[in-house]
Structures are given as structure tokens and as C-alpha cells.
């Protein structure tokens, strides 16, 4: 219960800070000359993409450790991270086409980066469906762990796809070995947004983890139904 409350507080603060990022991005960050105001989608699209991918890496790492240690806390964390990752992947897949239409002239292109990101989203959905389809907790955790590890392996391909293939999607302008190619004002807004999305991820995962724990306790005392749930 304490964890649930902490998660709610973190999420509440993060949502307030997100409103602050919106104000800063929309009113106090300059408009890029070539792309116009649509370029400001960058401040929500990229942080969401970073956390959609990081969440899957964390799912994979927790899954690897789960297979060795069989600690249910790791499985619970993986389930929480996967659900939150799905939400962030949803943000990426909606804001991306909205940005793409005015800049590329098309909502969608089946190039490597976009297709692999869609694949990541579908993997997340598959992971959550798998968890809801298997009723035995140990079996559910084991099957989900294998899929989580597969998802983790996909992430580097998404990040490096712009180097490996010819794509419409631009190269990274911040997450690259050399200095970020952004003016300081834009970089500051972007860094704030990354910080807020990090806080949102933490708040959501803490709440989702606490919810799983709560459901497990209910199942244990026999009030939670058949034991089949969202895991």
C-alpha cells in the first residue's frame, strides 16, 4: 500500500512537470526554421522512444535474472516495465506519424526504423497477451521471460537501424558519439522532457508493481478469483 501511494505521488509530480515541459516547449523554445512548429514533437517523441526501448531492455534483464534466481519480484518488475513500455511505444507510434506527415509528406513508411518500432510495440502486446493467457504463475513467468529476452535483443537493432539501412528516419542528433547537434535552448528543453519521462516511467512502474503484488496477495487469500490475471 505504501508503494502504491509512493507510485501515485511520483506519477502526480511527473504529470505536473510534464505540463511544465509543455509550456517550455511550446512557448519558450524557438521554432526550427526548416521544419516549423512540427519539429517540437521531438520533445515528446524522442523521450518516449528512449523509454519504450529502455523499458524493454529492463524487461529482458529482469527476465534473464528471473530464469536464474526464480525470484517473483523480478517477474513482477518485468510485467510492470512491459506494460509501461507498451504505453510509451504507443506514444512513439502516434506522435511519429503526426510528425512525419508534414515533414516527409507521408504518415508511414515501411522502412527499417519505423517497422522495427512497430514490431517492438507488437512484441509488447504479445508479451502482455501471453501473460494473460497462462494461468500457472511459474509457467507464465518462465514463458514471459523468454519473450522478454527476445524483446531485449531487438532493441539494439532499432537504435542502429538508421546506420544499417537507408531509412526516411533521421540519424540521432543527441544520442550519438559526437556532441549533440542542437542549440542549447532546445537541448535544455529536451533534457527536461527526458527527465520527466524518466520520472513518469518510475511512477508508473512502481504503481503497476504494487498492483501486481496486491493482486497476488488477493489470490493467496482466495479472494482474487481463479488465479488467472494480467500478471
Amino acid at each position, binding site marked *: 500500500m505504501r508503494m502504491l501511494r509512493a507510485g501515485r505521488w511520483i506519477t502526480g509530480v511527473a504529470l505536473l512537470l510534464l505540463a511544465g515541459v509543455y509550456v517550455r516547449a511550446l512557448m519558450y523554445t524557438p521554432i526550427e526554421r526548416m521544419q516549423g512548429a512540427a519539429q517540437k*514533437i521531438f520533445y515528446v*517523441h524522442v523521450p518516449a522512444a528512449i523509454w519504450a526501448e529502455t523499458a524493454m531492455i529492463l524487461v529482458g534483464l529482469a527476465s534473464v535474472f528471473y530464469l536464474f534466481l526464480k525470484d517473483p519480484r523480478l517477474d513482477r518488475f518485468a510485467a510492470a516495465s512491459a506494460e509501461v513500455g507498451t504505453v510509451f511505444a504507443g506514444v512513439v507510434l502516434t506522435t511519429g506519424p503526426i510528425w512525419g506527415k*508534414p515533414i516527409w509528406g507521408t504518415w508511414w513508411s515501411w522502412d527499417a526504423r519505423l517497422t522495427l518500432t512497430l514490431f517492438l510495440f507488437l512484441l509488447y502486446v504479445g508479451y502482455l497477451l501471453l501473460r494473460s493467457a497462462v494461468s500457472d504463475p511459474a509457467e507464465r513467468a518462465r514463458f514471459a521471460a523468454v519473450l522478454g529476452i527476445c524483446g531485449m535483443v531487438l532493441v539494439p537493432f532499432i537504435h542502429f537501424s538508421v546506420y544499417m539501412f537507408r531509412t526516411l528516419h533521421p540519424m540521432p542528433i543527441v544520442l550519438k558519439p559526437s556532441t549533440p547537434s542542437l542549440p542549447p535552448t532546445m537541448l535544455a528543453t529536451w533534457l527536461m522532457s527526458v527527465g520527466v519521462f524518466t520520472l513518469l516511467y518510475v511512477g508508473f512502474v512502481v504503481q503497476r508493481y504494487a*498492483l501486481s503484488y*496486491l493482486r497476488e496477495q488477493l489470490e493467496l487469500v482466495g479472494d*482474487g478469483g481463479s488465479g488467472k490475471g494480467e500478471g
Partner: protein
Amino acid sequence: MQAPVPQNAGYMIAAYVITGAILLGYALSLYLRARRSLRS
């Protein structure tokens, strides 16, 4: 002569509104699911 800045703020507003709606919606879903579990 410099090209004019494209007028496409509508796309930006749509993206920000949708992002906010998704994140708020998920926060609400977590709240409601936890409340339901606590009641049972």
C-alpha cells in the same frame, strides 16, 4: 532569399494532446485498477 517557416502548428498541437491523453489515461487506469483491487 530565405524560405518561409512552414506553418504546421496543428500537427504539433495534435501530437501534444494525444501524448497527454495517453499518459493521463494510463495514470487513470492504474488508479482505477488499484482502487478496484483494494475494494475486493
